[in-house]
Structure formats: C-alpha cells, structure tokens
C-alpha cells in the first residue's frame, strides 16, 4: 500500500492498532503481527508500586518494529492531556522510538459515553502544538468541530465512527464523508483517520471506502473470540476498502441494470 505522511511521520500501513484489553501479552503480540500494523497505541499510567510478576508492556513490544503512538486516554481536561503527552514523549525518547513527538490526543467529556469534548480538544491541540507535538486529535464525527481542530493546528484529525469500544461501526457515514470533504478541501493530503467504534472487518472497509487515510482500532481485535484471526481480517478489510475507494465505486441506482444484453434474446420479456 502507498505511504502517506502525518507531518514527518511516514505511514506505510494504514491500520493503527491498540494494545489494550488483550487476554495476555502473547496474544497481543500475535494479533499485532497478524494485523501487519506499523503504528501501535499505548496509554500512560502509574507504575504499579507492588508488582510481583514485573511484566511490563514495553518488554512485549518490539520497539524496532513498531512506531508507538501514546494516547491521552483518561484525560478530561486540556491541562491533563498536555501533562500526559509530555510524559509519553519523554518515555519514548528514552526508548529511542520514532513515536517520540506525536500524540493521539483524547480529551473526553465523561466516563460513560467517552465522547470527546470539542472545546478541551481544541485547547489542548493549541498547547501541544506550542510544545512541538505532532497532534493526532480524536474527535466526534461532527464535520465543523473537525475543521476547528484542524485550524487549531492538528496534524491529523481522527473522527469517531461510533463511541469507543462500542463496536457499532460507522454510524453516520454522511458525517464521516463530510469530515473528509471539509478537512481535505484544497489540502488533499491532510490525514483523516477513523478512530473508534470498529466492531468487525466490514466497518474498517466502510471507513476506508469513505476516503479515510487509515483506521485506528483496539477492542474490535482485542475482544474478538479469536483476536489473531480478527487481526488478519482487519488487515485485509483495510486493504480491500482502500483499493475499493481508489478504484471508484459505481453510483447507487434505484433500478437494475442488466449485465447481459437484451439485444439478441430469444425469450419472452414481460411488457414487450
């Protein structure tokens, strides 16, 4: 698949995969491998003070293979999102991972819906750009909010298909396609990634067919009955959707159009 860019980050595989909610690290590793992803997301949390097993996510991610995209999940204010972003960048600099310098910005409104807070997202985007971050901003599928976030300096906008972890797919394809249209107006290469809500492979294809540059998902793989198999499915769905978008679909029509010609038929045709 062709490479695209988010600022200086060259993206060779358009599926971004999360590392949360797997039954164990081994399944996560296999699923990431099967998904063929390049970019994986992680969260920043307190080091556990008492940890007998001592198993750390960093020990299970091949940092030479994956570009780590730290998120600000769990942040409900712009101020906290900036704190978490700075910590994530520092930790990635220590790992010498190319992900040091970008962030998946989430500023959420409440714990129940996990819907993004547009005002907080815009505030945090401005602050993070000042701090030198490449900001990938998670937002709702509201096209005007998406434009405001781009104007605030986001390097990529990531509209949600549906609420995080809900598995409802792309609930409003019209809004997602309007996001594409407005964000890419006179700026065709501006990256738009559909983030959140993917439940199954066809959801990924739909997002890509709408013209998304990529799809970010986690639960759809991690909580599938067979996460590794689902990761394969997601990978192929992404490729199918991208190819389909580039190939250009036929318009929807009200009535049928025969594929075999009527010229030369020797049979009875109703009404003729």
């Amino acid at each position, binding site marked *: 698949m062709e490479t695209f860019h988010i600022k200086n980050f060259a993206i060779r595989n358009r599926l971004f995969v*999360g*590392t*949360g*909610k*797997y039954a164990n690290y081994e399944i*996560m590793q296999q699923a990431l491998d099967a998904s063929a992803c390049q970019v994986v*997301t*992680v*969260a*920043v*949390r*307190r*080091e556990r*003070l008492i940890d007998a097993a001592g198993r*750390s*996510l*960093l020990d299970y991610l091949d940092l030479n293979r994956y570009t*780590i995209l*730290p*998120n600000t*999940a769990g942040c409900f204010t712009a101020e906290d999102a900036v*704190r978490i972003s*700075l*910590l*994530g960048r*520092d*930790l990635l600099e*220590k*790992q010498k991972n190319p992900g040091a310098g970008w962030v998946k910005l989430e500023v959420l409104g409440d714990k129940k819906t996990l819907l993004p807070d547009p005002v907080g997202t815009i505030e945090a985007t401005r602050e993070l750009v000042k701090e030198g971050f490449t900001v990938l901003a998670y937002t709702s599928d509201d096209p005007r909010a998406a434009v405001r976030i781009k104007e605030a300096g986001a390097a990529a906008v990531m509209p949600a298909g549906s609420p*995080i*972890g809900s598995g409802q797919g792309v609930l409003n394809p019209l809004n997602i396609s309007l996001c594409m249209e407005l964000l890419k107006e006179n700026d065709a290469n501006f990256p738009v990634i559909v983030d*959140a809500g993917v439940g199954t492979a066809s959801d990924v294809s739909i997002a890509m067919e709408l013209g998304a540059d990529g799809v*970010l*998902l*986690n*639960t759809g793989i991690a909580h599938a009955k067979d996460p590794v198999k689902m990761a394969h499915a997601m990978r192929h769905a992404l490729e199918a959707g991208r190819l389909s978008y580039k190939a250009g679909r036929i318009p929807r029509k009200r009535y049928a159009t025969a594929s075999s010609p009527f010229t030369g038929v020797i049979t009875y045709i109703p009404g003729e």
Partner: protein
Amino acid sequence: MSAEIQITVNGESRNIPANTSITALLSTMNLKPEKVAIELNRRLVRTAQYETELKQGDKIEIVTFVGGG
C-alpha cells in the same frame, strides 16, 4: 543526621530519608529510570534532573506505558 521526610509517590504517602534523589528513590523501588517517566509536583522531570533531591511534601508520579487504544 538521618532525618526522614514524607512525600507522596503515585498517590501513596511514603517516608524516605532526607536528601534522597529521584535516582535513589527509583533504585529503592527497583525501577529502571529508562522504563519510566516522572512528574514532580505536576511538572515533567527530565533524566538530567534525576539527581534532584526530594523535599518534604513533594508529590511524585512515576508512570510507564500500559495497553491502550
């Protein structure tokens, strides 16, 4: 003199010897400095400042990466 000070580490109160540096604290907790990031009183602390000595009432957050989407 071996006076103790009280600090808060990841939300939990902890008594440590006075003049303990961040490096020393990490060491007593068996944490590798390169595997964590640190905030002292809500401000990021870079590795070059890990020799900073902690003071009475300091609030330190020691974070790492966990699975997330």
